[in-house]
Structures are given as structure tokens and as C-alpha cells.
């Protein structure tokens, strides 16, 4: 993983965690306006970063695979579209860290 990819993943980890925390807090404080605003801010950051990741480095979910010429995960041999979801490394192998 190159430095730019690592930096982007780090931002996804941070905003994703901020959302995880906000979600649990809001479950038991559904009317907390400050928490709702925090959730909204983090939500916007998170999805912007995830979208950028999908376009530049590959999918984070199987329902968001980008299929277009030059998209990440194109077949090394034929240079055409390929199913990039299966590409290594998987998270437990140290991928996306």
C-alpha cells in the first residue's frame, strides 16, 4: 500500500470510528442535538472518503465496485474490467491498514 492510500485509509478508520461511537450514543440519546450534529458532520466526511477510496484504490463493499476503464482492479493481463472485490490483500492479511 502506498503512502497516499495509507493516509486515506487512516482517515476512513478515524471517521468510521467517530460514526461507530456516535451511533451507539444516539441509540440511547436520540434527541441529543449536539450528537446529531456531530453524526451529520462525520457522516459527510466518511462517505466522501469512502467514495474517493472506491474510485482510486478499490471497493470497500461488494455493492460499490466501480466498473469503468482504468478503474482500480482492472485485469493485469488484458487491461479490461475485472471483478476487483476479490483482490488481495484481505483485512486480516494486513490489507486496508
Amino acid at each position, binding site marked *: 500500500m502506498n503512502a497516499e492510500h495509507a493516509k486515506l485509509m487512516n482517515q476512513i478508520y478515524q471517521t*468510521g470510528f467517530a460514526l*461507530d461511537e456516535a451511533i*451507539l*450514543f444516539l441509540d440511547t440519546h436520540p434527541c441529543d442535538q449536539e450528537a446529531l450534529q456531530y453524526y451529520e458532520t462525520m457522516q459527510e466526511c466518511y462517505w466522501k472518503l469512502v467514495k474517493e477510496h472506491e474510485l482510486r484504490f478499490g471497493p470497500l463493499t461488494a455493492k460499490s465496485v466501480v466498473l469503468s476503464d482504468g478503474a482500480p482492479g482492472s485485469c493485469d493481463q488484458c487491461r479490461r474490467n475485472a471483478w476487483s472485490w476479490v483482490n488481495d490483500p*484481505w483485512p486480516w492479511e*494486513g*490489507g486496508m491498514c
Partner: protein
Amino acid sequence: MWTYDKRLQYPVKISQPNPQMAQVIITQFGGPDGELAASMRYLSQRYSMPYKETSALLTDIGTEELAHMEMICAIVHQLTRNLTPEEIVASGFDKYYVDHTTGLWPQAAGGFPFNACVFQSKGDPITDLTEDMAAEQKARTTYDNILRLIKDPEICDPIRFLRQREVVHFQRFGEGLRIVQDHLDSKNFYAFNPAFDKVNVQKNCSK
């Protein structure tokens, strides 16, 4: 339904194998206070929660526990990579290895398999949420015990993250229990089970 995110909840990057430590940490996969039991406990209990906040809480924490299970499995996987037969014997990993090679199988550190009897789904919100608070503390103690044995900072880092989550979940379940009690009769929280009894208890009591 669920959607898989192709990343861990918190990064796990361990460069040095340590099969001895893997045998201890695997208990948080399939052991009595492990992440698999936690996830199954909360995701099973949520069907009998009569209040929307606690149904949401059990769904979201139960989901996060699946992500914790994945982190624990990633730690064990990375601690058991590239082992030689000599290292396997010397570390005492041979007893696990003979049945599972270096595959992941849910067991406790003592070797006994994952068992649904380590958790309850009682169909009573006060009972279930009280169990959930205890479960988070038991898992926190297990992580404290693991942290005393670890020297490698690359293992400590994700384990500390997981320990912190137990503390946060305990807090949220405490709030969930409070929400349940706020719906009930403060003079007797146990007058009826809101997940089961349909009777108008106040009318019955005033007879």
C-alpha cells in the same frame, strides 16, 4: 441483513509471529467472554426488546462485536503465520495445530469449544441487559489479563482498543437498562415482564 466492509474496525498489523500468545488471545474468539459469544448474545436478545432504543442498541453493539471477532481472528492469524514445525512444538501450539493446522476455530484458551451456554437470551429486558453489562465487564477483565502477558506493542495496540470498547458498551447498556426501567413502575420494576405480559398490571394491582 448485513453488509461487509472490507476493512477492520481498527488496524491490526503484527509483524512477529507468536503462537504462544495466539493460544491465549484465541479465547476472545471462542471463549466464555469472547467476541463471538458477545455478538450472538446481543443479536439473539434483541427480538424480545419492547423498546426501540434498546432494540437499536443490541443490533448496533451486536454488529460491532462481529467486527471485534474479526479483529481477534486477524490477530491470531497474524501471530501464527509462517511457523516451522519446530516453532509449533516449542511454543506448545502443537495441540491446536494437529486439529486445525493454522486455521481459525472458535475455542477458549483452555481448548474447549465455543458453547452457546456461555450466554443467555432470557426474554426479559431487565435480565438480559443486566447480563450484558456483566458480559462487558468480564470481557474487559479478560483483556486486562491478556495485556499483562503481552510485551509486543503491535499486539497491545489493537487489544487496548478492544478493551476500551468493553467500557463504552458497558456504559451504553447501563443507559439502556435505565431506559427500560423508566418505562416500568418505579415502585416495582418486576411487576410484569414487558416483553411477555399483556395484562394491565396497574389495574390488577389496584384491586
